[in-house]
């Protein structure tokens, strides 16, 4: 989709043209779901986060000033959705966060990348997802997550280190 086409679609979608909106959505929904899934580590929550973000985006599209920024814009909404869910996780301590527990994992059985990824803690997953799946830089991630970019950087590299250890076999 070229820029002009995108602009046109956004313009239409701003006028609540669901067809146009869906066409734009088509270009990002896979990445959105991947991002949410890897951040939250839970299908249902990921689905909810994406669908909430999409609704908010549709109704708030008039705030998007430049069509070509659609992707990063909708990712920011999605990030906010995920963050909210994460805050809920943090207070409730879901069983999901197995990463730092003394846990034995049978490598041969299920130690693929996805599992390794899900064994990272929430912050690490969030940062990796933001950087790999939506392409943010550490300074931008820091702004989104309200963290010092250096902390972002060190968590990022620590997370990759952890994954390397988990994946080496």
């Amino acid at each position: 989709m070229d820029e002009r086409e995108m602009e046109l679609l956004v313009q239409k979608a701003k006028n609540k043209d669901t067809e146009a909106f869906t066409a734009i959505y088509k270009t990002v929904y896979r990445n959105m779901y991947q991002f949410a899934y890897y951040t939250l580590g839970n299908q249902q929550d990921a689905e909810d986060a994406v669908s909430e973000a999409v609704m908010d985006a549709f109704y708030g599209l008039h705030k998007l000033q430049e069509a070509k920024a659609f992707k990063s814009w909708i990712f920011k909404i999605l990030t906010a959705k995920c963050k909210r869910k994460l805050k809920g996780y943090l207070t409730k301590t879901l069983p999901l966060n197995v990463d730092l527990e003394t846990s034995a994992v049978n490598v041969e059985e299920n130690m693929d990348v996805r599992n390794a990824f899900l064994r990272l803690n929430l912050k690490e997953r969030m940062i990796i997802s933001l950087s790999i799946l939506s392409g943010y830089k550490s300074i931008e991630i820091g702004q989104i997550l309200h963290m010092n970019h250096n902390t972002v950087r060190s968590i990022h590299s620590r997370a990759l280190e952890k994954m390397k250890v988990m994946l080496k076999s």
Partner: protein
Amino acid sequence: MNDKDINQRIKEQSELLEIPDALKPEQIKNKLDEQQKNEMPNKKIKYYKCGFLAAAVLLLLIILPMPKFSGDIETSDTIPTASSYKSIYKMLSSYQKSLMNDYLDGGALPEGAVAETMQASLADTESAAAVSSGSGDFSQTNIQVEGVDEGDIIKTDGNYIYILDLEKQLLQIVKAEGETITPVSKIELTEQKDGDSNNQDSQFYNYQYYSEFYLEQDRLLLISTASNPIYDTEASASGSNLIAPYWSYESNSTIISIYDISDRTQPRIIKTLEQDGYYTSSRKADGILYLFSYYNAYLEAGSEKPELYIPYTDGSAIEENCIYIPEYVNSTGYLVITSVDIHTPDRFQSELAVIANPYDYYVSSENIYIANGINSENSEIMKFSYKDGSITPIATNEVPGITNNSFSFDEYNGYLRVVTTVYGSTQSNNLYVLDNELNIVGRIEDLAEGEQIYSARFFGDTGYFVTFKRVDPLFSVDLSEPEKPRVLGELKISGFSSYLHFYSENLLLGIGYEADPQTGRTTDIKLSMFDISDPSNVKELDKQIIPNAYYSPAVDNHKSVLINPQKNILGLMFYMQKQTNTVYTDYRTYQTFSYNEESGFTQEISHAMAPSIYMESRGLYIGNYLYIAEGSSRISIYSLTDHTLLSEWTD
């Protein structure tokens, strides 16, 4: 396997994820069509209108030509204050307009709100007494600058141990007498602020989370950030009357809760002070707390509502002449700085705000320095004096590059030394010496191209910093002539240190990672001891690699390190992983080390920590007892004489 491979594999894996049907474009379209039929546009959005600003003035055109200053400094490099709230609004919104595509969502990456205008109350000057008291020989939080205290989650005063347990939502006070721990009291903390329980979104914007605390004689200061949802008072009673959906604008306030703990069994809250913005950092010096928060303005409601774009402290807006506008408006938010006299905390003693994008905070024994991010290649450094709690802007100047953390700064004899990394197509590293008005008087630039700074530490006329890509050059720099800093030496070893600590006049300790010199890939955690007796010929005397340790909080949080060279003790926690056949096991240990030049590092205590998810831990000592606190769940007491486990207390 390198990072690129991992990235690639994550990407590939994620391609395989099955997308739930409900998210497929057709389904989404149906859902939208359905909604369109049933209701008019969502009420959440009716409040604002886009395109509210006609004149899209490019940034920087409206700097107020009025370097009006409370101090008597005449340099032109001081920051002008605002003339009116409306002029601030104009500036913020024109910046917002000019923002690049990434930040189009109507503002608001951050949050917050602070303010208040106060007369300084006279502090009782006796409070400047030494921080330590009690039995004398006990550990303090590992801080950067002597006399400038930093908050933490676990502290001791020599008699009691105070533990902020974020998992259990409480602050536990226990009495520590030798090997006996006696619980004394608990302060229960609530995470969820009262909210509208009928609104399921309410949990998202009614929360309070705790960061750290301070001790000052019989006072305990607890710092937290709370959501501060802004409601539209004119909205109808039906439905959500939040002024903006929580994802588009998050408003926070930083809360200091001051407890009287003269009776440790009954901590009593005596004062709560609130400033706009989420908590970013703080320091305590001479009985006064200096608090930094970041407040993001909400501009969509227009210039008629200053309560939405001017930070408040203690319920009132910061006055125009206390709001500073830097040369580069680079943010739609403010750094808010306040001071509180801990002994007479009836109000903020001093407060001000600066439009900024602050990212590092360094406080010397006299001044506050803030790194304000302009872009990935330049920072502005802002300097404020803070004598007796009164915060005064002194100067500001721009330097190339980004600082690594507060250890990238050091003030000595009126000069500020700062090391930065320029992130660009080619990375490089710089050192600058700035005089007391922040004029750059000396510089070394373009060091270690392609690398970045991982740690720095200064000792009088000498500075040390570590850059890294594949091997670790530890640079030593002579700063005895501020105008002519020069590199004295460059020690190349494998791995790198991300924390440096002077262990004695001649010894510098580094905590970091070992790395493969061929690939630069980091392996295990490493401790290094450098001989700095001749700064032009620094040597790595000893190194201790901790096998299986893939991470230690010490590498990015100096406060997690227990260190006292006089007592010859170093304590830190490790995250470890070992492999038996095909099974990996994760575990954590707390270990202490001593060091002497003959035998190098000696591991003395190795404590297996309980498996847990997010538990923050610290080691502390009182006299000859080491206390390892794993949150407030377990405290293990070791003898520092023979390193045996004496007893264990669990809650």
